[in-house]
């Protein structure tokens, strides 16, 4: 573990720029902390924090000089790794058909600045979905393989945070190139730095940092431990996947559905929601055609449309799909939870639906009807 004085944060960012990375990090825009391209540490939301609760978000000037004194806003890194709109390919029409046009893929080499522990876990989940299944998503891989990840531990959890419940934070444990802990201690302002990859090691070598002293290590450790004790939300995860599978018929779904606007905000801000649609477009003459992939949401009616109608016609079925996918069937599909406890879906729900609360109520229910269990028999794949 090394120590980086706060005034030298730009030395680190410059070292990344010299390696050809485009820096993307938190900035203040439209009254919220969002992610965008940054030039230096002065673009960061220095001295800002935010207050979050179910359905509410307030940006606050704390005037404390902290670079990372907040948690996460509505954006997540998925918009860089799996952008809201991507062209999958383009084709040229011919008399009787078409041919695919070969293109140079110009994907920026991103360095993500200030990636939180929950988001490292979210990226690991997206990796599992797009890179480690039976097929590989080329678009995702192109963006992911070069990305440099500078993580930052959370020392001030937000009102809707529950990463500690999901075992996804507040400390960055893996999946980063470098990880910082921002420390204010006895008038000192510095970062402790941990290295997580060879690339990180190389960047660090250039900065010639000193080893962190024992009191500095202790101060960093203490800040993270404190954060773990002050999560705004909690979720009991023991046996949750099985429990939700057994709550497919439960009166509480109707209660949530009465509030749910099926707007899809939760799926847009969720750092792991990966569903997509495709759009086929042509020019007027039909000389060119393109296929675009766009983010989609299981809250739309069209999402489940097949000839003959929509599979999930009601808000009950759509909210249930989202919640049970995230916390239950995700385990069957990817051997992990789809939730990292970032709390975005709680904050950005216009009616303040709080999944930690919904889970609490569903846990207390008595109606047990299990779906999707395989009764210990081998899968139908041959």
């Amino acid at each position, binding site marked *: 573990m090394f120590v980086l004085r706060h005034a030298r944060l730009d030395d680190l960012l410059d070292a990344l720029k010299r390696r050809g990375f485009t820096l993307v990090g938190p900035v203040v825009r439209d009254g919220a902390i969002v992610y965008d391209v940054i030039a230096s540490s002065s673009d960061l939301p220095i001295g800002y924090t935010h207050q979050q609760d179910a359905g509410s978000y307030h940006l606050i000037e704390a005037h404390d000089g902290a670079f990372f004194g907040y948690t996460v806003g509505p954006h997540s890194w998925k918009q860089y790794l799996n952008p809201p709109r991507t062209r999958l390919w383009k084709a040229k029409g011919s008399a009787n058909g078409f041919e*695919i046009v070969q*293109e140079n893929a110009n994907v920026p080499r991103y360095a993500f600045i200030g990636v939180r522990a929950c988001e490292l876990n979210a990226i690991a989940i997206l990796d599992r979905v797009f890179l480690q299944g*039976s097929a590989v998503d080329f678009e995702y891989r192109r963006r992911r393989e070069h990305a440099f990840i500078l993580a930052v531990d959370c020392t001030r959890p937000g009102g809707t945070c529950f990463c500690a419940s999901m075992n996804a934070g507040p400390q960055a444990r893996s999946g980063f190139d470098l990880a910082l802990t921002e420390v204010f201690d006895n008038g000192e302002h510095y970062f402790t730095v941990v290295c997580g990859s060879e690339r990180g090691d190389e960047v660090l070598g250039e900065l010639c940092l000193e080893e962190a002293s024992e009191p500095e290590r202790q101060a960093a450790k203490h800040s993270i431990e404190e954060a773990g004790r002050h999560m705004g939300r909690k979720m009991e995860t023991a046996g949750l996947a099985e429990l939700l599978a057994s709550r497919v018929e439960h009166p509480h779904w109707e209660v949530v559905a009465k509030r749910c606007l099926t707007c899809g905000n939760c799926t847009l801000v969720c750092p792991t929601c990966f569903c997509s649609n495709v759009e*086929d477009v042509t020019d007027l003459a039909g000389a060119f055609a393109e296929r675009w992939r766009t983010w989609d949401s299981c809250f739309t009616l069209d999402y489940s449309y097949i000839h003959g109608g929509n*599979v999930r016609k009601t808000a009950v079925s759509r909210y249930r799909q989202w919640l049970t996918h995230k916390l239950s*069937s995700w385990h069957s599909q990817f051997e992990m939870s789809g939730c990292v406890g970032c709390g975005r879906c709680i904050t950005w729900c216009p009616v303040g639906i709080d999944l930690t609360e919904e889970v609490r109520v569903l846990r207390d229910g008595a109606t047990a009807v299990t*779906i999707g269990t395989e009764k210990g028999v081998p899968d*139908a794949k041959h």
Partner: protein
Amino acid sequence: MIAVATDPMVPQPFRIHKTKPENADTFTFELAPVNGAKRSAFQPGQFNMLYVYGVGEVAISISGDPANPNTLVHTTRAVGTVTKRMKKLKGGAVLGVRGPFGTYWPLKEAEGNDILIVTGGIGLAPLRPALYYVLANRTQYGRVVLLYGARTPGDILYRRELESWRGKLDLEVHVTVDRATGTWRGNVGVVTSLINRAPFDPENTVALVCGPEVMMQFTMQELEKKGVPADHVFLSMERNMKCALGFCGHCQWGPKFVCRDGPVFRYDLVEDLLTRRGI
């Protein structure tokens, strides 16, 4: 450069060599790769994503003979934007093809059993390759029964083939329609009503079922009554699909991705999903 040839999202061009209208809204295409490349083999029950230039892509099951993978055969019903446009394509036109995808009918594992095929409407299309395979390997199976239900006599798919199959002495074919029209003097009623008259040994039967979901639900009930073990019953599901790779999320059915965990499922593994709405 993008490695176009290996990106599973990029369609490969196939030329239509033959078109055949099956009935008012259903048609069959025979396709071969434009670049002359050998077609990769498929298993009966699998599907392809078919792309109509500039219009869109749809999941369509393969309905040709697995012994002849170089000719790709698809039978499609024109019900949506893409399939309606597809229906207008003539021989020589080019379609995009991705696939084959998905699980398949367990024909190898079913050897030594009676084979009972229960289908409704266009559901016969994904089972035709299975029937071709079973007939080509006839000695490996016991009795083979095909039960087929269509809405009206005019909706009957592969009519000439059905008639020639019915002429075989080692294959039992029963057809029924929901509504008798014209000169029809055959069975009238739902396809499940044919199950009782079909000769098969329930305990040693593998049943392959494809049709509308409600038809499959009732078929499952009938098969259970007859004593066919649930783990000997297979069905093919349909869901909205955009990628066929497990990335778009649309085809989720409970914990299953129909595109890659299906479309062919063993009934006992999905029993509780099939009987529930809005999953």
